């Protein structure tokens, strides 16, 4: 800033602010040869406690400052973490991990098997009140411990010396290694956790790190912090960034202004902004493993509606009637894409061919728009059940986005002869409660996968699952899922086929009506390389990130 500009400031801000403005200019010109980047986050960081993380911000931060047995790499692949070797025995029910001896915490302590035992026991301990403890289900005694019926020491994890860890499962879990890349399964340093007590993980200093980066500058409530290269990390040679700065920006136009003034290298875009920046070279869409779909209540208290929804032609008509392309483009416009099925795209790849799950399991009729066909099937279906008119309600959240969605679907459905749709937009909690109690005709639901395996979606629609709100009921589907989780659990390709067939079954039955897959539109500077993004679990893995 020179005198001239300072003079202009005077005119705007008044003489009293002149001196102060000049002070501020020092910060703006910090050029150094160190590799740094400025990222934005749309929400605060609520915790750095590995047991308590439930949101995307904390799981992203914990994943890059800590490390578990494995680290999830590109396309959900399993890459080395603290475990050097793994032996699976007892029909897939016992895992023996050999840990690397050069892994250290940022306070100099060694990372040992005991840290895993402590971390896991802490997470399932009802006193910790972890909201992700249910992911431990399937590990010996986990469910009983979470429910306070067994002591935490009975959890199926034992340390055999400092560098050997033995985990016992109730039944084989095919995706167990993937779970190990989820932050709630990372080791925790007992002496640090005990030292800080209830303050553990509430600031960047009341925490210890064993991952590629360590965090500084987070007071627990402020809106900016920095990830700095962790020189105690066992694979520090692979880490190229010196620091990654984070700033919470809740207003997307602020994010865009920061990006355009080179103060941020990554920002998310609103649907309005997407329109203007679609062709920008920095424009990037990041898909998430989150599918929005309509459920039809087969156990509706109104017997006419229940009868209608049991009719396949009527279910298909309701699906054919929705023009998903138009909806995603004009109503959402935020980078979200048309659902290719119930399981989301870019979640998992065929272990043999490398093809995406949604390609293998694609059923065009389940997600296509065809109004003529919709009307024809509707007429046939209504004739079969002997009705001419149908009044149904469409339940959803009361957010602006959800209201737009219900309006769109209402408009699409009411083109079917004799169908009237009433929208019910209620608060999230009410929607959830009414969905689970079966107190709805149709509801727009969403599901986010916890880990990069199709089962995270598919297990939902077995006939006895409590989240199967529409009570989809197919013996064929149930047995396929049972096989995938039981007899085929140790056979990757047979299991894959089971899951593909289950998805096909669900789509052929039109058990649910998938609408769209959620995505985030970003502007990410093209000189940022090596950022690994996964659609489920922890999104960002920045271990190999670099600036070119």
């Amino acid at each position, binding site marked *: 800033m020179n005198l001239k500009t300072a003079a202009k400031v005077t005119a705007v801000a008044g003489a009293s602010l002149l001196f102060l403005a000049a002070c501020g200019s020092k910060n703006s010109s910090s050029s150094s040869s160190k590799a740094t980047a400025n990222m934005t986050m749309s929400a605060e960081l609520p915790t750095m406690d590995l047991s308590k993380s439930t949101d995307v911000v904390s799981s992203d931060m914990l994943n890059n400052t800590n490390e578990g047995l494995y680290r999830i790499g590109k396309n959900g692949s399993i890459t080395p973490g603290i475990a050097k070797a793994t032996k699976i025995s007892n029909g897939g029910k016992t895992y023996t991990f050999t840990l690397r001896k050069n892994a250290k915490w940022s306070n100099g302590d060694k990372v040992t098997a005991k840290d895993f035992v402590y971390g896991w026991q802490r997470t399932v301990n009802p006193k910790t009140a972890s909201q992700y403890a249910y992911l431990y289900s399937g590990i010996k005694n986990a469910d009983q411990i979470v429910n306070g019926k067994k002591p935490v020491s009975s959890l199926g994890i034992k340390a055999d010396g400092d560098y050997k860890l033995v985990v016992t499962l109730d039944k084989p879990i095919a995706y167990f290694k993937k779970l190990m890349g989820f932050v709630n399964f990372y080791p925790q340093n007992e002496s640090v956790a005990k030292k800080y007590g209830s303050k553990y993980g509430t600031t960047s200093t009341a925490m210890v790190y064993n991952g590629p980066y360590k965090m500084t500058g987070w007071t627990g*409530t402020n809106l*900016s912090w920095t990830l700095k290269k962790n020189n105690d990390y066992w694979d520090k040679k692979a880490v190229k960034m010196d620091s990654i700065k984070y700033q919470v920006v809740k207003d997307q136009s602020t994010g865009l202004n920061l990006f355009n003034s080179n*103060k941020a290298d990554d920002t998310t875009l609103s649907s309005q902004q997407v329109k203007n920046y679609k062709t920008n070279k920095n424009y990037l869409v990041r898909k998430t493993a989150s599918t929005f779909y309509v459920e039809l209540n087969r156990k509706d208290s109104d017997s006419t509606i229940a009868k209608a929804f049991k009719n396949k032609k009527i279910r298909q008509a309701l699906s054919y009637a929705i023009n998903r392309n138009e909806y995603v483009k004009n109503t959402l416009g935020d980078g979200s894409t048309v659902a290719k099925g119930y399981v989301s795209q870019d979640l998992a790849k065929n272990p043999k061919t490398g093809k995406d799950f949604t390609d293998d399991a694609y059923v065009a009729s389940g997600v296509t728009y065809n109004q003529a066909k919709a009307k024809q099937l509707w007429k046939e279906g209504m004739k079969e059940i002997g009705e001419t008119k149908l009044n149904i309600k469409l339940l959803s959240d009361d957010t602006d986005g959800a209201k737009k969605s219900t309006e769109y679907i209402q408009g699409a459905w009411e083109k079917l002869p004799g169908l009237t749709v009433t929208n019910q937009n209620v608060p999230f909690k009410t929607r959830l409660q009414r969905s689970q109690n079966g107190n709805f005709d149709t509801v727009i639901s969403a599901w986010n996968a916890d880990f990069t395996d199709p089962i995270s979606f598919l297990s939902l629609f077995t006939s006895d699952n409590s989240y199967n709100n529409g009570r989809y009921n197919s013996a064929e589907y149930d047995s396929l899922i049972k096989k995938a989780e039981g007899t085929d659990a140790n056979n990757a390709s047979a299991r894959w086929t089971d899951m593909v067939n289950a998805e096909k079954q669900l789509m052929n039955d039109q058990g649910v009506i998938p609408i769209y897959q959620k995505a985030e539109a970003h502007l990410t500077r093209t000189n940022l390389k090596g950022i690994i993004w996964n659609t489920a679990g922890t999104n960002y893995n920045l271990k190999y990130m670099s600036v070119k």
Partner: protein
Amino acid sequence: MRKYLLKRIFYLFLTLFIVATATFFLMKLMPGTPLQNEAKLTPSEKAAILAQYGLDKPVWLQYFIYIGGIFKGSLGLSFQFSDQAVSYLIGSRMGPSMQLGGQALVVGIIFGIILGAIGAIRKDTWADRLATILSILGIAVPSFVLAILLQYYLGLKTGWFPVAGWSGFAYTLLPTLALAASPLAETARFIRTDMVDVLSSDYIELAKAKGLSKFGIVYHHALRNSLIPMVTLIGPLAAALMTGSMVVENIFSVPGIGEQFVKSILVNDYPTIMGVTIFYSALLCLLLLLTDIVYGIIDPRIRLSGNGD
């Protein structure tokens, strides 16, 4: 005076107690939970988590625990930030809001007085009209519009000021300006009206007749007398500014309390809602009390209580 003060302080605590009680029961009518992942938790897991936060106890017991906690200086734990005490949350978020509010108040009042005085002295000239237009604009243009314009033109286009963030004094300037517009306009209008009255009063005529300089008249006689009623304005203005502006804080990514308060309402984080409400009430009561005391000191005609004790 002491008796009056004691009475006022007693009322202050009574008010706060009523506010705490009312907020607690109102919050119980729209209960929020610390459950972050409600869609995926089983009923027994939910129960375990609620018990951890003491939400399994009957409401009356929760109430006594809560009120008891306040006396011990504890406002409970936040639902959004795990293990974070509400009092810590308020404490650390208050700083930036207070700083911005204080700066905006100073800027607003100083420039408001200047603008108002110019308007009154140059009554019915172009300067007066310009001052009036500016103050109407200051009141009519919402702070978020101003914030967006300031950020775009002075932050992004010219690069004179940081666009957003909170790491140094320079970062406070744009939000201060955005916040100062409305108190500036209000002060200007207030001072102008008041000074027009004062300037036409007898003692000003006398001063003029005695041949005092124009500056002397305005500074020593007109302005001083116009400032006394300003004190009543400053109390509420200070309270409004220092409790933080959600929009301005959001736009400039300021880690302030205003933004946090609104968010806690949206996510039903009621320990935070209650904590902040009580804190705001205390701040407002205190500022009003201060206003009354200061008013009595600077203007002896006003007695704090009618009995003259």
